């Protein structure tokens, strides 16, 4: 008897008896932990012999704990992972290549787009992450400010030049105490998109993968904007609180900001808190000479190389990625669901909250437009994200010229 063709391959694996326990650790707060608690209960109901020990922790503390657990050879079986952090673990052989599990049908990736799966592989093709929640970036802009100032918004297929021109020309129409742009280093994605859309990779193994001139041009664009007063002043930027809810942008003091699409709910509640009724809209990132440059960070699951209970780890990971009931509980709480069938379902569902819907639609559009996978070296956060953040401030404060900032960036990133 053959299985019907539409049955997921993983069903075969699901039918075998699962037993024992695994530890599962992820980053998140109360809202997400509550949802995962429900998902685990659902999974344990279906597999009475299996236990998932939950180890949630807030984002910053999560990475602190995971690095010590890894050093102490006590990693949980299943861990939350991101492309930016993956190299630090992959380079020490701490994670399992899950391709064999996929080949055996224990994990089903058939509903996840190839580009996301390719982006989850290391240089030598090992599959160390299972992408479950995509967090593409957008230019989020304050539509109310745009209308009040009588501005135009760049149309589809706009370029980096169009974007910088738009910021520059908008400034004179904005009220006092409102700026066109905020901090372009909220996350590394804007610069990654700039590099990608010029046809380069951020890193080529341990060296930077793009020419110095490109970085000078980038710093120059921002220096020019800052000089004409189109960027929030650097002394204010250095005091900006971290959470999206409390950002200057949410307070209505910036026209446009690059933010992860999954920050939409937080931004909306921030706008409401500041007592304004501003409407927020999103734009996909600008295009460069080589077209699309977006890098899509995807929240993923990894299995530790030291994991002793692979059948259970694989079964729970598969459930986390593909199970409709689980997805109905989670509702894309950490990035847009990557399973195409579930994504379509959640977009069509009238119950889906507004903030989540924006995220899902952005992800659908980005997925359609394509993205540029990146492979990062270990220490990416300190060698790229942090250096970028420092150098742009130096440029804004006028203590370094764009050329000097680019030189310093290269020197620090290529140690």
């Amino acid at each position, binding site marked *: 008897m053959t299985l019907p063709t539409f049955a997921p391959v993983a069903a075969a694996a699901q039918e075998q008896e699962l037993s024992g326990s695994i530890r599962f650790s992820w980053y998140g*707060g*109360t809202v997400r932990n509550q949802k995962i608690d429900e998902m685990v209960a659902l999974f344990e109901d279906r597999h009475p012999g299996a236990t998932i020990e939950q180890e949630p*922790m807030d984002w910053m503390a999560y990475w602190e704990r995971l690095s010590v657990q890894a050093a102490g050879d006590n990693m949980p079986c299943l861990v939350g992972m991101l492309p930016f952090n993956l190299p630090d673990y992959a380079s020490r052989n701490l994670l399992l290549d899950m391709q064999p599990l996929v080949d055996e049908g224990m994990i089903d990736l058939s509903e996840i787009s190839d580009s996301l799966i390719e982006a989850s592989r290391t240089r030598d093709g090992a599959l160390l992450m299972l992408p479950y929640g995509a967090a593409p970036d957008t230019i989020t802009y304050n539509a109310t400010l745009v209308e009040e100032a009588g501005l135009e918004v760049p149309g589809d297929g706009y370029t980096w030049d169009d974007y910088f021109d738009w910021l520059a020309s908008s400034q004179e129409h904005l009220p006092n105490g409102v700026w066109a742009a905020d901090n372009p280093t909220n996350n590394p994605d804007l610069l990654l998109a700039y590099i990608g859309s010029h046809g380069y990779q951020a890193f080529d193994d341990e060296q930077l993968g793009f020419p110095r001139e490109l970085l000078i041009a980038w710093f120059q664009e921002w220096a020019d904007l800052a000089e004409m007063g189109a960027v929030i002043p650097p002394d204010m930027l250095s005091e900006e609180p971290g*959470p999206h809810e409390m950002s200057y942008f949410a307070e209505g003091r910036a026209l446009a900001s690059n933010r992860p699409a999954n920050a939409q709910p937080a931004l909306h509640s921030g706008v409401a*808190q*500041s007592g304004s009724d501003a409407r927020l809209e999103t734009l996909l990132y600008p295009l460069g000479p080589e077209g699309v440059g977006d890098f899509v960070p995807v929240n993923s699951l990894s299995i530790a190389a030291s994991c002793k209970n692979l059948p259970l780890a694989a079964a729970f990971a598969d459930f986390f990625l593909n199970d409709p009931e689980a997805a109905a509980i989670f509702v894309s709480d950490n990035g847009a669901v990557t399973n195409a069938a579930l994504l379509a379902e959640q977009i069509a569902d009238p119950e889906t909250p507004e903030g989540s819907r924006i995220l899902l639609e952005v992800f659908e559009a980005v997925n359609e437009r394509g993205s540029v996978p990146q492979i990062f070296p270990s220490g990416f956060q300190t060698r790229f994200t942090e250096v970028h953040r420092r150098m742009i401030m130096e440029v804004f404060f006028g203590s370094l010229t764009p050329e000097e900032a680019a030189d310093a960036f290269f020197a620090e990133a290529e140690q």
Partner: protein
Amino acid sequence: MANAEQISEPGVAQRLLFSRSTVAKKLAFHGPIVVLIVALLYPMLWLVGASFAPGSSAVGSLPILPERATLDNYRDGWAGVGNIGFSTYFVNSMAISLISIVGNLFSCTMAAYAFARMEFPMKRTLFALLLLTILLPNQVTVIPQYIIFNALGMVNTYGPLLIPKFTAVDAFYTFLLVQFIRGIPQSLDEAARIDGCGHARIFFWIILPLCLPALATTAVFTFIYSWNDFLGPLLYLNSPDLYTVPLGLSQFMDATGRSMIGSLFAMSVLSLVPLVVIFAVAQRLLTTGIATTGAK
């Protein structure tokens, strides 16, 4: 009567004059201090006010009193996550802090007595080593310590947080007690020795009762540090039902999703209560303990 009034008048006038200038002096002295205290207490009062404001509406507003007071933040925060209420974290934190106090009082006093009153080989070197551990940054020892406790199978238990307290690893308190014991006259020990006491009885009957201020200092600081400790519990406690208050509080913040800032404020206020109570109760002993040991 009139006479009496006449006689007393200059006195009254003098007294009035005197008290006026005293009031002026007191105002000049206390006025600025009160203003300063209000300025210092403002963030604290703001936190208390914000904890009663609906949701996170207080964020970004300056007034202390919310426009509309509600207990929702306390209710939601106390309910916690899943089947684990915030009371669990309080019980865990309280147990860890109290056992830590017992451990530190037990081990640090004995170590301090040995260094202050006994003669043994390498005493000076060992004391110098003990003081050196105060200078050792935490980051250096974190991973080796974790590996040891993991090998002992103690991760995800309270062992790594409590066992060290019974081995006098908090060198600061040992040092504080050594300084204090050195200040107690040797003649008391000698008198006790002539009466036939050994080290044990001298320690328990003579030294410990006289060390009360230093013991209080040790107890209060141990409580504050273990109550506020984040890194230790973060590394060694993995299951949410073992979490302490600081770990519980961090659950309300989510850099990658929605934060429950209102509940964070409410539970932060509650978590400050034991600290404030302890400090109020032990304040007098604390200042004596610190002033007399030179640990400033």
